[in-house]
Structure formats: structure tokens, C-alpha cells
């Protein structure tokens, strides 16, 4: 499941940033490597929320700088979802 989550997230980041999925690695930095600005940050967040039917909390947002951190957060939010199998 985690691998799939990562794949889906990478696909979303690729769509928004224009970088190919193979260029998007766990350690890839959103700002330094993928030129993510405020608009793209929102587009990625909204697309992830819609895809996984989760809601990213305000307090989690500032901690995200790499793809790995985004995947971990999404996995955590999926696990916390009530009555839904992660």
C-alpha cells in the first residue's frame, strides 16, 4: 500500500511540476529540486486530499519539504481515517 501511495503522490507531483516521475525521488526537495511555488503547493495538496480522501491539517503543512515527508504524512492520515482500511 505504501508503495502505491508513493506512486500516486509522485504522479500528482509530476503532473503539477512537469518533472518526470523518475526524477522525483523520496529525498527530492519540493522547492530546490522541483521549483514548487505557492500555487503548485496548493495544487499538490488539493489533489492529494481529493485522491486519498483525506484532509491535511494546518499544523502538518510547514513540516513538508521532501517527497518522503509528504508520503509519510499521507500514510499517517490514511491510517487515522475512521472506519477505512488504510
Amino acid at each position: 500500500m505504501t508503495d502505491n501511495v508513493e506512486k500516486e503522490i509522485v504522479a500528482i507531483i509530476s503532473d503539477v511540476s512537469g518533472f518526470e516521475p523518475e526524477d522525483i525521488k523520496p529525498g527530492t526537495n519540493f522547492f530546490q529540486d522541483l521549483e514548487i511555488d505557492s500555487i503548485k503547493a496548493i495544487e499538490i495538496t488539493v489533489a492529494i486530499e481529493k485522491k486519498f480522501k483525506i484532509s491535511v491539517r494546518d499544523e502538518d503543512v510547514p513540516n513538508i519539504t521532501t517527497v518522503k515527508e509528504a508520503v509519510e504524512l499521507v500514510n499517517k492520515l490514511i491510517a487515522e481515517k475512521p472506519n477505512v482500511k488504510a
Partner: protein
Amino acid sequence: MLKPKDTYDAVIIGAGISGLVCGCYLAKAGMKVLIVEQHYKPGGYCTSFKRQGFTFDAAAHSFGGYRENGTMFRIINDLGLNLRIERYDPSDVIVTSDYRISLWNDPNRTVEELQSAFPHESKKIRDFFYFLSNSEPFDFVVLRKKTFRELLDQYFTDENLRSILSFPVLGNGGLPPSLISAFTAAKIYIEFLLDGGYYPGESMQSLSDSLARKFKEYGGELRLSCPVTKIRVKENVIEGVFLDKSTFILTRNVVSCCDTRQTVFDLLGQRLVREEFMRKLETMQPSLSVFVAYLGIDHSFEPLLRPGVNVWIMPHYNIEEMYLTLRDKSINETMGYMIRLSPNGKSLQAFVNAPFKNKEYWIENKYPLLEDFIRRIESVIPNLSQHIVYKDASTPYTMYRYTLNYKGAAYGWASIPSQLFAPEFKFIDGIGGLFLCGHWTAQTQGIPGAAYLGSETAKLILRKGKYGL
């Protein structure tokens, strides 16, 4: 039989700012690019026209985002545009019966001016502007579901201050604080109000013309007065565009900078578009349009008005009511408006948001409403009508006629949080090689917003290598 000259690496529909910028980047990268535009001049909302010796900017009247590392600064430098850019200080002045607040080129000076007008909100004013000026990209993610009203409420208790801060957002975004997304409002502050007041040479047309010239220098071809009639798709991939029934242009990439409805209903045909996309499209609400008065004058109204400065006249503090009356009725006596003396000091432009209504309404009411508007402006600028030597107006229908934006919308889709979309309006699923661009594809607007989307779409095309070079 198709000749080789009818084949392009990309065809861009619309020579507004997003189309021109996208075209420049693609042509610069070596692609063979054609931009087609239905109007006889390039620029979209960034065009100017001459009447009886006066030059008027049709809609866009200045731009922002030209600070170092700002969107326009980056794009103008990337493309090496040869433009003489002036900046006016202050860029904007907000006038109410109690206050006259200037938005200075130096944001610290703006903060100090607001603090002296609202000393009880002093710390919060500094915090608010600090947030706008110093946040990192992900800091804005927390704004994605909020309205500007909610953001203002986090900082301020003074209702008049909240209204003063909301009025130029209504003027630049067409929505009151209870409806406009906090993100869009923040972008309006960052790109238009805290870094605004720039003017490109003779008129706004200079910016569009300079982009068009650069595009041609890079080897691009621009065809004006040339509407696209159809986008042809074969086996889920773009095959080309029809310029009229008999002229077919072969291309693997189409960048559509016109509105999404036009792209889907008129150019593509909805049978090619997935149901989910159509359902979303049917629920989308466009932004308001604008009514613009163009006045040629023979007198200087300084110091009431200064060249190149946007003056926002707020007759009262109830922005919500102002918006509802504009949306549901029309322009009227309770409306606020923006007035601006042109940089050469010879003409005035006055703007108010307006609903689209229909062609007949505006044919019937354009001139009576213009006269009403002039009378209202005269309460701020005495004896104005004695010094008008030329007058005309654009209505929402005029905006539609020249740009074909759905319902003459001034800012693409209405920037309400529920319409804050993921990238789903930048592509149409299942159609390879079709890119949607311009102010209908993201919640960013105005010249910096459109230019940003043009450069980003070009990057997407170049990075993805989805084009058949």
C-alpha cells in the same frame, strides 16, 4: 494536400498575456510555434486604443510582480524584453469619508500609514503584512479552504480596517471578503498591491507588442484576426486545428488560452470530454466583468489625482452589500470604484465591477450609466464634466466581444475556495497534447498571474517532452 508550412510543433489559441508568454518560451526553446488570435491586435485584456488623440488602456492599466525575483521581473528578463518600465509611488490610494490610505512602493511605509490610522491594530497590521511578504510556498497551503474574511478575522477586529483592506481585493478579484479565497486575496496583495504600480512605456499595449515582437524574433508566427474554429483530435491525441472550414494546421500540441467552456463546447466538442470533467465544468461560476469609463480631459486634476496612481473611492464600508448589489442589479449609486489618471496625465479611466447581463441591456444602458458614473466621479473631482473632451465606455459585453471570455469575466473563474482547483483544468483527461492555459486554469490572475501560467505551461510542455519535435 498539406504543405510543410502548415505544420507546427505547437499552436497557441489566443494572444493574451498567457499565450504570448507561453509562445515566447516555446519558440525560444526552438519549437516552431504559431499563435492565432481572433482580435486584430495582441494582448487580450492588456491592449490599448487611440481615440481623438487620446490613448486609453482597454482593461489592464498597470502591472505588478516586478520586484527582484517577482514573476514579471523573471519573465521580462528571461525573454530579454526591451521595455521602459516606470513605477508610480504610491501605486494605489484608498479613499473613504474618514481615511486616505496610500499603498507605497515601500511596504514598510504602507504599514506605518495603516498603523497611524488604526493605532489599536498596530501589531496585527505588522503581522499581517509580514505574513504576506515573508511566507514560504507551503505556508500558503493553509489558506486553501479559507476565505479572505476568515484570514482578516484572524488578525483584525476593526471593521473599517477590514473593509479598507478588502476594497482593492474586490476591485482586483471581483469578490467580497466573505467569498474570495484567502489565497487569491493574498496573491492580489503580494503581486498587485505590495509590488504594483509598474507601467510599460507608452501604454499597456507596449507590453503585449513587445512580447509579440520577441515571439517573432524567436521565429514564432503570429496570426491576428484569425479565429480557430475547431481542434481536431484523432485517437485521443491532438492532430491539429482548423482556422476556418478549409485551412487545417497540423500540430501535436495545442495550448488553449481561451476559456475552458469555449475550448470544450466550441472547439473540441463535448463528446471527447469525460463526464467527470463536464460535471465539474457545469458547476463552475465565472468572475464578474467590468464597466470601464474612458475620459479624455483638457485639465490637470492634480493633486486630487496623480498620473499612474490607482485611486479607490469607497463610498461606504459595507463591501459585501456593494458586491451583492453589483452582482444582482447593476452598477449603481452605492458602488465603489477605481479611478486613474493615465501616466501621460491626459486621460482618465474609471472602473467598476459589473455583471454580464446581456448585449441588449448594455446597448440600452451604456451611455446613461456612463453619465451617471461621471456624475458620481464629479463628487470627488469637482468640475470634471467641464473638462471632458472625449468620453466612451466599455461594458461587460465589450469585454466579451474583444476577448471572447465567457460572460466577459475579468478574472477567469470566480476565486471562491470551492473553485480552488487541483491541476484538473490544465489538461483534459484522455486528450494528449492539449494544454489549457490562462486565467481560467488556476486561481491566479491579472498580468503576473497570466504571465506565470504562460511560462509554467511552456515549462510543462518542454519538460514532459510531450511534443513531437
